[in-house]
């Protein structure tokens, strides 16, 4: 038996046979074709048609957004411009494999040059190229294996297009060789509550069909397990399932300290699921869905209806609604139609609302009306606040509209640093860790090439959170976290140790966080937080926190 270590995601445990994601085939060599032009052309034509048909077929099978991705890939395979480019190479005497390889690579480069955000399309295109080449060679296409029974997927790393195709019924656990706690794989696993360990460098040794135990709590893959270990793992898995199925209790630490667990929602549609999974309210309700498909802001009446639908699902519970957060990755022409060189640093969030006060006033009016008609405890907050003045203005405006509790999001380092001056002037703070990390690390959260910097475990981010937590305690005002960080069970404990009172996350993550909180007292949470704070790097912070947590 041996142990391979990596970074565990969530608290799951799973056992099963390994199925490896096939590595990409070696690039074809540039040899002169031995076939006639007609024969090569015919081969490519058949391979392309077969790949397009298979992609369409899989698209029909999975449905949803994955269907669009797959159908777009099928279109890429049959693209007329690409066909011309392949044909030109065949005429020059290249093999079908090499012509496809080169023509696709050329287009891939064009897409990549257009900027980081088209990178995903570029990797879609590579995937299509590999499929066509595999088909020409008569070998199976690379990608997610389908052994026909439950399995543990071992991959170098997973691309978004791969994860779209994952059959969550069959995949018992994910092991990736690359990737960190904020990789696409980790986020997917957290959102869907899949057992996963990322960054397992030695996973390359695992062979097809071999039995393993994947223990995310320990961050360890156990190979050649004994019968005893297997049955132990199996009973832990069953216990965890029973735990998840048991009636949910309010979020609390081992000593009974209450830590309300709330849901992040993007539309009123998700409310039923959130309530079922034990959300004690809503910590972040994003209102962008009302505005994104519109050429002009929706009317007060339209907005009131949506807010009311949301509030009705949470009678007597806290619901925190965020004012429209437009700009950067979600531009709206009626708010700001000026092109910006750096949209993440531009007229966005509260800045855009203050420049279009009528839109903010309409939203606050609609919220106040919805509050009148329902029983929920409505809180409102402003996105992307940078200064104490902005916080004061928003808080005053919300109160003028009859909203009792108004606060701000802490996403910009400047306001986190000013937390002691901020807290007495507003009712609460909610830390958006995704943006706070992006702005602290100066790393675009949408850009894959700087993704390693987008890690909320970084002590620089934790120190800012500590300042906000301390200001909350001094002023007696609540501080929450809504962001990816709250969904990471161990980091959730650290946040509580830093003075955070409530945690808000994707509803699927609630069970794991609830279970981890129950293991530690407030004193232990504080020392786990201290261990993370005194580290020099994000990786060391996680490691120190894990060691401190195992002691408690």
């Amino acid at each position: 038996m041996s142990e391979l270590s990596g970074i565990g995601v969530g608290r799951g445990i799973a056992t099963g046979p390994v199925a490896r994601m096939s590595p990409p085939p070696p690039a074809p060599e540039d040899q002169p074709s031995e076939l006639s032009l007609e024969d090569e052309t015919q081969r490519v034509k058949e391979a392309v048609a077969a790949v397009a048909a298979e992609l369409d077929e899989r698209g029909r099978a999975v449905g949803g957004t994955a269907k669009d991705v797959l159908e777009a890939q099928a279109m890429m395979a049959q693209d007329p411009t690409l066909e011309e480019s392949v044909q030109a190479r065949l005429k020059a005497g290249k093999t079908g494999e090499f012509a496809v390889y080169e023509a696709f690579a050329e287009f891939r480069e064009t897409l990549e040059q257009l900027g980081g955000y088209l990178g995903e399309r570029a990797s879609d295109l590579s995937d299509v190229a590999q499929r066509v080449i595999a088909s020409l060679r008569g070998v199976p296409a690379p990608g997610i294996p389908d052994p026909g029974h439950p399995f543990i997927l071992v991959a170098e790393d997973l691309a978004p297009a791969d994860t779209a195709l994952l059959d969550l019924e069959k995949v018992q656990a994910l092991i990736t060789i690359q990737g960190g706690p904020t990789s696409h794989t980790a986020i997917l696993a957290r959102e869907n509550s899949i057992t996963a360990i990322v960054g397992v460098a030695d996973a390359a040794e695992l062979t097809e069909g071999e039995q393993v135990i994947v223990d995310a709590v320990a961050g360890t893959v156990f190979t050649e397990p004994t019968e005893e270990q297997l049955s132990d793992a199996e009973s832990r898995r069953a216990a965890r399932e029973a735990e998840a199925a048991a009636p949910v209790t309010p979020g609390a630490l081992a000593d009974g300290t209450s830590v309300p667990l709330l849901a992040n929602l993007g539309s009123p549609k998700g409310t039923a699921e959130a309530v079922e999974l034990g959300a004690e309210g809503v910590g972040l309700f994003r209102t962008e869905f009302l505005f994104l498909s519109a050429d002009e802001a929706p009317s007060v009446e339209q907005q009131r209806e949506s807010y009311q639908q949301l509030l009705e699902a949470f009678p007597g519970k806290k619901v925190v609604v965020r004012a429209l957060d437009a700009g950067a990755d979600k531009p709206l022409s009626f708010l700001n139609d000026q092109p910006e060189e750096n949209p993440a640093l531009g007229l966005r969030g509260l800045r855009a609302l203050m420049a279009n006060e009528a839109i903010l006033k309409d939203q606050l009016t609609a919220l106040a009306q919805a509050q009148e008609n329902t029983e929920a405890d409505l809180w409102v907050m402003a996105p992307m606040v940078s200064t104490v003045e902005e916080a004061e203005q928003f808080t005053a405006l919300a109160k003028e509209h009859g909203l009792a509790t108004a606060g701000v999001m802490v996403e910009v380092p400047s306001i986190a640093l000013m937390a002691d001056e901020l807290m007495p002037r507003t009712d609460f703070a909610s830390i958006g860790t995704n943006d706070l990390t992006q702005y602290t690390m100066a790393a675009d959260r949408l850009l894959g090439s700087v993704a390693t910097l987008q890690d909320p475990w970084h002590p620089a981010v934790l120190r800012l959170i500590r300042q906000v937590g301390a200001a909350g305690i001094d002023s007696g005002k609540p501080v929450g976290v809504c962001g990816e960080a709250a969904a990471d069970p161990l980091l959730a404990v650290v946040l509580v140790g830093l003075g955070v009172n409530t945690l808000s996350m994707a509803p699927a993550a609630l069970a794991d966080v609830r279970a981890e909180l129950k293991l530690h007292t407030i004193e232990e949470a504080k020392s786990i937080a201290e261990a993370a704070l005194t580290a020099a790097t994000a990786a060391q912070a996680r490691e120190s926190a894990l060691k401190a947590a195992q002691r408690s």
Partner: protein
Amino acid sequence: MSSTRTVTVASSQGLHARPAKLFVEAAQSAGSDVTIAKGEKSVNAASILGVLSLGVEKGDEVLLTAEGENEEQTLDSLETFLKTDHDEAS
């Protein structure tokens, strides 16, 4: 003979991802040959890679050119398509 039309793109994600795919499907099913141009660069509207490579953003002006049967009708339907926001709220 050919017909042309200048259209401002309304989809909030421009012509990336899903809207690009839907636009190319619409162009492929048109009776005439269509090109789409942004600035100096002009591509075959039936080519998803061509359309993606234009990097069309919301608010960009594009020039559509149709040649063949039912030119005006083709341009009408593609213009309507481009003026609609196809990005679902998320």
